[in-house]
């Protein structure tokens, strides 16, 4: 990825976080918390493991069923992507 594209991607992330943080998105509260935790925990390639989110302060207080429902909803909305090799618990945040 060129430097310009990297910086644009960081800018898009900043705007997207603002949209979620200010409650301007059409996501439910658990979805917002899981997505924000995912953005914070993701590495340089945007990847993260579900166990990282389960221990993250933003999403740790959500019950397990609600957490996984939110994760599934975010996957359906194409905001989180499951690892293509179907490696268990490995996701990545979608480019916003």
């Amino acid at each position, binding site marked *: 990825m*060129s*430097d*310009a*594209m990297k*910086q*644009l991607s*960081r*800018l*898009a*992330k*900043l*705007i*997207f*976080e*603002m*949209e979620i*943080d200010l409650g*301007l998105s059409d996501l439910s509260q658990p979805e917002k918390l899981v997505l924000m935790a995912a953005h914070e925990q993701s590495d340089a390639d945007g990847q993260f493991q579900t166990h990282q989110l389960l221990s993250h302060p933003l999403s740790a207080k959500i019950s397990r069923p609600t957490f996984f429902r939110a994760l599934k909803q975010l996957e359906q909305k194409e905001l989180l992507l499951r690892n293509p090799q179907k490696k268990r618990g490995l996701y990545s945040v979608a480019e*916003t």
Partner: protein
Amino acid sequence: MLQKLKLDWLTFVVVSVGYICSYTITSGLVMPLQKIFAPHLPIVFSVVFLPHGIRVLAVYFLGWRGLIYLLPSSYLMWATSVYGSSIDLTILSPVASLSVVYVAVRMVKTYSRSQNKGAFDFAWKECLVIAAIASVLNGVAHSMLYDSAVNWILIIGYSSGDMAGQIVLLFLMIALMRLNRKLSKFI
């Protein structure tokens, strides 16, 4: 030379287009409305100055290179204001505005790094704090450039206009991203 400084053309084009577009909206829409609804305000500042947001975002993401990317478009827009719209802007105005943004970014990033887990939970909040500090410094710098003394009307005018510009720009970007997401579903 460009490679030595790690500058690239695509970033230059994106930053310049962003700056020129935001300046055009400010001078073509905001300023005429300001003249109608607040004719008593000096025309050297705008009540919503969108290019301040572009400056802050460029320097925030690109560091000192952001200043180099912004300089040509800043002087191009300065020239259009001075020679095209007869607005009496001093030649040092673009340099002052860019320098204060860099100072504000360095101040906030240094403070943020000194904190254990960073001072801000989200980058957009950090950007708003930078914009606020830079807008006050910009107001003071321009007050000194025009009056060689503290001119509170200029300080308050520049500060509030720059800050409002940053906030409006971020909301415009949210709106554009939402529109982009909606349109991409149909394509």
